[in-house]
């Protein structure tokens, strides 16, 4: 049996070989295709697909073409040479997105102490992009349409970054993360896909958030920032007015950008998000009000006392990056709400804040203490649910919301046609503590198989497949999809003992909603 290592480096070659041995691609797809490399297909067959959009398709099939989700449904036609992953009796979820993750994931254990250029500086660093040498001003055009910025430097295919060159595609930590459901991670200020065994196209976006500081312990800093926003907002107004005026009067003078903080301007233009690391109630209130006044959406990392001022944060349409289990003792001498609350995520969500969930330790702990590090992302979401958050939003908190913060939600975070095929195939409810990730697919390639890696293969080993189930080696038959479609009941979750957990009533059993 091939090892994982060989498998994923050979999968593409294998598919190519099979495809080229079959009918020429042009027979199916038209003559243009036969000039290029043949298409690579992978199908996840017969699983309960939790798309992350509110839709659940039971016993369905998902087909990926060249790494993108091509089709999700029943009775799919699977082209010859499609690699199949048998998901009968299993569930399919979108791959998880981990913020602030340890660099060991993509730099491996042998990484030299690589210090990547931090483009988004603190106040006193020069605004020069270490990668391309351009100044911030050059990258963020003064044009009104921020879309120009985003297509240039953010979130597009073929995006280039320092991480591309230093990526270790064989990092053991990466395999551990994949085995626990994580497929995209934030490394420093770059969004990186955990493409095992490959070095191309791993960086997805960069520097989508600008760090700002707002703290009660630095009142002059706050005043300074307020002023910058005011000036930038004023400049924006003047610019817009000038653009109207200049159509008639060519001589009209363009408003000067002198003294305008370019980062703040970028935030107002929607080119980047403003990120504040803030926990104190008063600071959060101040940020919320600043955001409401200047119409930008703040990202608040930490947000421990967010629940105390949730409504204001909601009005600012803020994002929060929180750890549900963070503890801060309540100060009894204060009359208003303060301290931490397990209900933080739930309360913020109800007020309209989008909550991304991170664990207390964003590294991978191999010392023996379990349940508190990056590998326990689903568990962390479970704690948000403990505090009253609904299950669907909790899952969004570890998939599509962090993707949004990284500017890559058009590619990852949910299972939808056109998005990257990053999927987890689990043997039960992802949020249940006994569930294991059995397979992980990243961009249409099977990169993790629980039984092929040293970590968990001895723990509740996968039983041999039934004779009745579809043999993954066979050519896809119409019959298989029909069978899958026919079975409408919930597949049985493995119950290790009679006293095992009751299945939690599924919140998502509703009709498709927004």
């Amino acid at each position, binding site marked *: 049996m091939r090892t994982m290592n*060989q498998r994923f480096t050979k999968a593409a070659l294998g598919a190519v070989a099979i495809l080229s041995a079959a009918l020429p691609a042009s027979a199916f797809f038209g003559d243009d295709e036969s000039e290029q490399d043949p298409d690579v297909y992978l199908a996840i067959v017969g699983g309960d697909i939790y798309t992350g959009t509110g839709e659940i398709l039971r016993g369905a099939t998902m087909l990926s073409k060249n790494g993108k989700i091509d089709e999700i449904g029943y009775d799919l036609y699977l082209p010859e040479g499609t690699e199949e992953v048998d998901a009968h009796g299993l569930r399919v979820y979108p791959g998880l997105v981990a913020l602030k993750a340890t660099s060991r994931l993509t730099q491996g254990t*042998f*990484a030299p102490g690589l210090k990547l250029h931090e483009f988004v500086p603190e106040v006193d660093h020069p605004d020069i992009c270490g990668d391309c040498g351009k100044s911030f001003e050059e990258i963020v055009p003064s044009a009104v349409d921020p879309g120009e910025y985003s297509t240039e430097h953010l979130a597009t295919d073929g995006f280039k970054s320092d991480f591309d*060159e230093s990526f270790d*595609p064989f990092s053991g930590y990466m395999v551990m993360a994949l085995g626990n459901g994580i497929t995209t991670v934030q490394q420093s200020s770059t969004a990186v896909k955990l493409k095992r065994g490959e070095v191309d196209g791993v960086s997805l976006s960069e520097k989508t958030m600008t760090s700002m500081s707002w703290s009660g312990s630095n009142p002059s800093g706050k005043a300074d920032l307020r002023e910058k926003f005011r000036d930038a907002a004023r400049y924006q107004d003047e610019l817009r007015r000038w653009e109207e005026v200049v159509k008639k009067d060519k001589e009209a003078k363009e408003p000067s950008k002198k003294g305008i903080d370019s980062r703040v301007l970028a935030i107002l233009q929607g080119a980047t998000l403003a990120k504040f690391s803030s926990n104190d109630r008063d600071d959060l209130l101040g940020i919320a009000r600043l955001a409401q006044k200047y119409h930008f959406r703040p990202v608040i990392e930490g947000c421990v006392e967010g629940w105390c001022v949730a409504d204001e944060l909601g009005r600012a349409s803020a994002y929060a990056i929180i750890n549900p289990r963070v503890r801060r003792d309540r100060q009894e001498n204060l009359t208003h709400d303060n301290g931490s609350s397990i209900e933080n995520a739930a309360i913020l969500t109800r007020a309209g804040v989008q909550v991304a969930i991170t664990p207390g330790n964003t590294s991978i702990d191999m010392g023996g203490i379990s349940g508190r590090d990056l590998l326990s992302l689903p568990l962390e979401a479970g704690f948000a649910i403990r505090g009253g958050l609904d299950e669907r939003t909790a899952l969004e908190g570890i998939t599509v919301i962090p993707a949004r913060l990284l500017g890559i939600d058009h590619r990852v975070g949910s299972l939808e046609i056109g998005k990257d095929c990053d999927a987890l195939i689990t043997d039960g409810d992802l949020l249940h503590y006994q569930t294991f990730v059995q397979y992980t697919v990243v961009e249409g390639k099977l990169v993790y198989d629980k039984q092929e890696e*040293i970590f968990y293969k001895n723990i509740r080993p996968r039983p041999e497949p039934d004779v009745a189930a579809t043999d993954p080696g066979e050519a896809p038959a119409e019959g298989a999809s029909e069978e899958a479609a026919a079975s409408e009941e919930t597949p049985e979750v493995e119950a290790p003992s009679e006293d095992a957990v009751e299945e939690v009533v599924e919140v998502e059993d509703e009709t498709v909603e927004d």
Partner: protein
Amino acid sequence: MKMRKLLFGLAGALALAAPSIAATSTPELFALKVGRAETATGESIEHAVILIENGKIVTIGQDLEIERGIPVIDRSDLVVTPGFVNCYSRAGLSSSGASGTQPSVQASTELYPRQELFGDLLKAGVTTLGLYPPGNGIPGQAVAISTAGTTLEDMILKEGAYLKILMASNSSSRKMLDGAFEKVEKYNETVEKAREKWEKSVEDWDKEHKQRKKDEKDGKELKPEDPKPGDFVAPEPDAVAGPFIKVLDGELPVLFSIRKAGDYLHLLKGIGEREFNWSLRVPLRNDIDLFKVADQIGEKELRVVMEPRLTLMEWTMRERNIPDELTRAGAHVAFIPNGDDLDNMKKWRLHVGHLVKRGMDADAALAAMTLEPARELGLDDRLGSLEVGKDANLLFFDGDPFQPSTKLVSVMSGGNFVGDEELR
């Protein structure tokens, strides 16, 4: 190849005779009878007879009859192998290197010939060395030397044996490599421009010359004629472009030094579509994950220079015999000793023997100490195996060279014995 021929005198060997520092010299033409000859080509010859003339092997075969009059050295109790070749070493060199792109640096400039170390190495069986320049980045070009020599001339077998480049997974490595190739492109552009300019100047001169002839005929006054432009002379490439031009022309092979499997993939990206000779140097430490790309390296049939060391798979006590895995995948392993010092070079064959015990093919292992490193140095036309036409660098063992109980009894370099012992 089985040769069953009668031997007669001269066989038209190459002119150069390797000089010796040995106390004992041998006749110009003589025959060796040994118990077994491990040729390092995969062939093992029992009761081998080797005819050596002017320091070169002229014939080798099993149980050959020797013509009367040719002196015979009969040691049918011994096993001979080719002299060991250590293609990647800094033995006897002492300068430290900087970091940067200096591909024109030659390691030979550091070489100081009369060192006891080289004699010791020779006695330990290392008849050829490949010395590389120090430093990071692109430190320069290696030199291949014979350890049996007293002058630079005697020792240096080939300058510019390979160009060493250290590649890591980061953008500065990539930029370094890209930058070097860009210089070649720029140089080519410069040459193009210069050529265009020259062509234009030739064209202009021709025109003028024709006009002049015409004027002459017409009897017009003649201006002094400019001399005809000579042949086109391309501008000299600079210190970076020069070596890399040779690389792209196939004259200068490259040795890329990498440290892990990921580096290999980044290296492939860096090389891109360019085609040239290159091999890998990978220091084998501890948990190295190189086995993850063994298939890919094997498919390309690359040469990998490495220590004869067993490693462990990350996080486990599972042993990996990476040299064996690479060999089975189709790659060519060239061994170097575990450490760049005399002690390690003496124990080198024992360390390799350990790997053989752990599954590596013995023939491949021997070739990894002889023929493959010779190929790495571009000297396989004259070294590295017991084949006709090659230098008579032989090692005499009283048994299987990979067994710890076996002793290295004698060393022959260029047909002459090294040291005091004279075999009869």
